[in-house]
């Protein structure tokens, strides 16, 4: 379908050319030499693990942050945007992963926000505004959406399409789509691909960032792989295989770690047993039921919004479940707050370590002992010596790289920050560890270390429940994988049957059923 459009001529002068682009944030190197070029009318995939530098690169291209080194030429001239406005003037439009819509304004106002039609005295020319917005929506096949509706009343998928309509309002030479399909159903993704094909035909160069390699293969002409802030590979899609991409994305070191088979031993006692546990976000689902055993690593796969994070939060009582039962070592439990779950031997490594996992401004030691302050205090008085000792001991155990236990945790790299989060829970000697995207924003080296650490924990008998969007990660670590869809378990895959295809089939099952009516 979309891929059928004529590929860009290989000899055409590039619209934009990057070479040796570097960027660091404090001590953390985000980009360490990225080179790539875009030809007019091509769809160029940008792939890489989380934290590989895709977002940073996009932010540089659209003027949100400035590069430290390297050159970017746009149509033969040096391109050095200092504000998002500069980028737009140069014809670079971006649809960001996070929505940048104004929820209480209408669809039309959102679409035309950058260039509102005006009448005398700066008053808004509403008839023109609505007409322009109508045209923009019709162009991307959203004929059924009223442009006067406030954006907050739209579903996620429609919001995504409104974002795209807004980006297409300006003159665009280059359109950057950052994970545009993450929230779309199969049918909506199809529609997006048609839009991309049409843009391509008009000579617009499209940068397509996606985690779904099958999409990359179906609509892109070329692909560039980023790893650890470097561009490690650029090739025509035609001559590339999935294996090649994955190996380049994760690096040889990790590819080796992934290849190590895991000793299957799920014969442990049941640590945690859920029956019809329902999260308030989906009152109509039947709920989630499964058993988690000691010594087992149980993976949870599923699309964004399938209820994976909500599941972990309701086990941990971060959100109170609507109904359902939890049994811990065979005893019924009803946790009313995280404190009770923690006392019962459960730890929760949250998805967003900056918002929920760490207290960034505070010392490493203070973060490590945050959930176990009773261990490093007596009669309510802190024993800072004991705190330092405990932090050092755990730091050694998880191979944490740090200067001083009194340094603020914000001075550490992403991987080491994540290790501090792990240390915080390990300080409590948990029996069950819930992990939500345990390697998000972590570099490849630290990732391999975290994998080894998690394996070690399960060998010690801990029960691990891991949610991850990266299927290779789940396939590497898990003994079993449960696939969630619409806030329930859509399927279970045993280790012997692990394959991305099988897992995705379960994940998309409901989407497909919905696509037919």
């Amino acid at each position, binding site marked *: 379908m979309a891929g059928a459009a004529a590929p860009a001529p290989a000899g055409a002068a590039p619209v934009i050319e990057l070479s040796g682009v570097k960027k660091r944030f*404090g001590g953390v190197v985000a980009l360490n030499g990225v080179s790539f070029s875009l030809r007019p009318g091509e769809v160029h995939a940008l792939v890489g693990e989380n934290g590989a530098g895709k977002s940073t690169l996009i932010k540089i291209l659209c003027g949100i942050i400035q590069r430290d080194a390297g050159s970017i030429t746009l149509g033969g001239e040096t391109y050095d945007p200092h504000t998002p406005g500069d980028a737009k003037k140069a014809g670079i439009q971006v649809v960001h992963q996070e929505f940048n819509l104004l929820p209480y304004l209408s669809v039309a106002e959102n679409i035309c926000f950058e260039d509102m039609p005006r009448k005398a005295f700066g008053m808004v020319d509403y008839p023109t505004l609505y007409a322009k917005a109508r045209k923009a929506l019709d162009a991307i096949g959203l004929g059924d959406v009223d442009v006067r509706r406030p954006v907050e009343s739209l579903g996620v998928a429609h919001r995504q399409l409104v974002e795209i309509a807004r980006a297409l309002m300006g003159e665009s030479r280059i359109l950057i789509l950052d994970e545009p399909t993450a929230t779309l159903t199969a049918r909506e993704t199809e529609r997006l691909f048609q839009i991309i094909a049409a843009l391509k035909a008009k000579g617009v160069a499209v940068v397509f960032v996606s985690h779904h390699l099958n999409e990359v293969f179906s609509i892109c002409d070329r692909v560039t792989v980023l790893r650890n802030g470097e561009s490690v590979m650029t090739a025509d899609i035609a001559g590339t295989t999935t294996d090649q991409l994955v190996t380049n994305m994760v690096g040889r070191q990790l590819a080796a770690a992934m290849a190590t088979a895991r000793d299957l031993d799920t014969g442990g006692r049941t640590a945690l047993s859920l029956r019809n546990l329902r999260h308030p976000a989906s009152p109509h689902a039947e709920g989630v039921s499964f058993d988690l055993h000691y010594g087992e690593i149980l993976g949870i796969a599923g699309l964004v919004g399938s209820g994976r994070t909500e599941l972990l939060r309701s086990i*941990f009582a*971060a959100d109170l479940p609507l109904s359902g039962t939890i049994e811990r070592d065979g005893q019924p439990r009803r946790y009313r*707050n*995280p*404190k009770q*779950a*923690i*006392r019962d031997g459960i730890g*929760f490594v*949250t998805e967003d370590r900056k*918002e*929920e*996992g*760490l*207290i*960034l*401004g*505070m*010392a490493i030691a*203070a973060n490590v002992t*945050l*959930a176990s*302050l*009773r261990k490093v*205090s007596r009669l*309510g*008085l*802190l024993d*800072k*010596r004991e705190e*330092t*000792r405990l932090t*050092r001991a755990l730091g050694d155990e998880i191979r944490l790289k740090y200067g*001083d*236990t*009194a340094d603020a945790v914000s001075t550490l790299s992403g991987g080491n920050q994540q290790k501090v989060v792990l240390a*915080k829970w390990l300080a409590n000697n948990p029996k069950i560890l819930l992990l939500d995207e345990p390697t998000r924003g972590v570099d490849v080296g630290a990732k391999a270390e975290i994998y080894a650490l998690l394996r070690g924990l399960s060998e010690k008998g801990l029960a691990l429940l891991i949610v991850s969007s990266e299927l290779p990660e789940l396939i590497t670590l898990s003994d079993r994988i449960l696939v969630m869809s619409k806030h329930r378990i859509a399927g279970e895959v045993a280790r012997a049957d692990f394959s991305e295809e099988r897992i995705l089939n379960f994940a998309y099952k409901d989407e497909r059923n919905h696509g037919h009516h």
Partner: protein
Amino acid sequence: MDTTDLTTAQAGSKTIATTTKTVLREAGIGIALIALIIVFSFTPHFLSSSNVTNILTQVTINLVLSIGMTFVILIGGIDLSVGSVLSFCAVVAGTVMTLPGLDPAVAVFLATISAIVAGIGFGLLNGLISAWWAIPSFIVTLGTLNIARGAALQVTNASTIYSFPAAFNAFGSQTFYGIPLLFLIALVLVAIGWFVLTKTVFGRVLYGIGNNEEAARLAGHNVFFYKVAAFTICGVLVGIGAIIYMARLNIASPIIGIGFELNAIAAVIIGGTSLSGGRGSIVGTLLGACIIGVLANGLILLGLSDFMRQMITGFVIILAVILDKYRERLTKA
């Protein structure tokens, strides 16, 4: 055995390193205070013992209120009600103290207890409402500001209470080597506040909540309890502040304490505590309160009008926050 010793020694040196860092943070504020004192010492009476006593007396009440305010601001809250609540506590205590037929010592004791209880009552109210319904404390305490003021006027029928026991009045004007006794009491409260914030689990969690409430909650801490506790501590200090006010000025009136909350907030902010919570210290607050007191006194000695003094104090508050932004950048680098 050798390894154990080594570890202990290292741990010790790290603690020192941390302390030095904190001290350096506060050093800037201390230097500002010393600079002010040096500048004003060129005016004839500034360093005279009677003027020093005067400054310390002026600083005392604001200092006591600022200690409580520091706890509230550290968890990311604010308490606008302290001035009105101080007035309410004072009229309650004044009423108790002037009850007919009470032995003076008993009267003063009961009055002190009742002022603190009244302060705790309002602190609990502020904390419970803002924590339970997740209402910004700015709004809740704006409400209790009016409630407490109205209650104080209602209870007294808008009249002033005076003629407290003579011993109580004498206590209020007692000095040791020129240092007012009331200021020494305030210093003891500073020491207690410092201890609680830096040496206890309670203080650690308070900082944690101010920095990142959700992370603290998910680490198993009862955020609700700590929020209510911070406002209650503030209430206790307002109650004590009310007694100190009465001991110094020998009156209790429903119209005292107007604007005290703003002075307390100013002292906390000048002392380097972040309004968004999680960062700051009691020692900083002590220095902040002293800066405000020294500035007010010195400017009067320089012959500036009260109006000019107010303007300059305003500039200093803004300046302090701007300087803090730079300091933040320096510590991050």
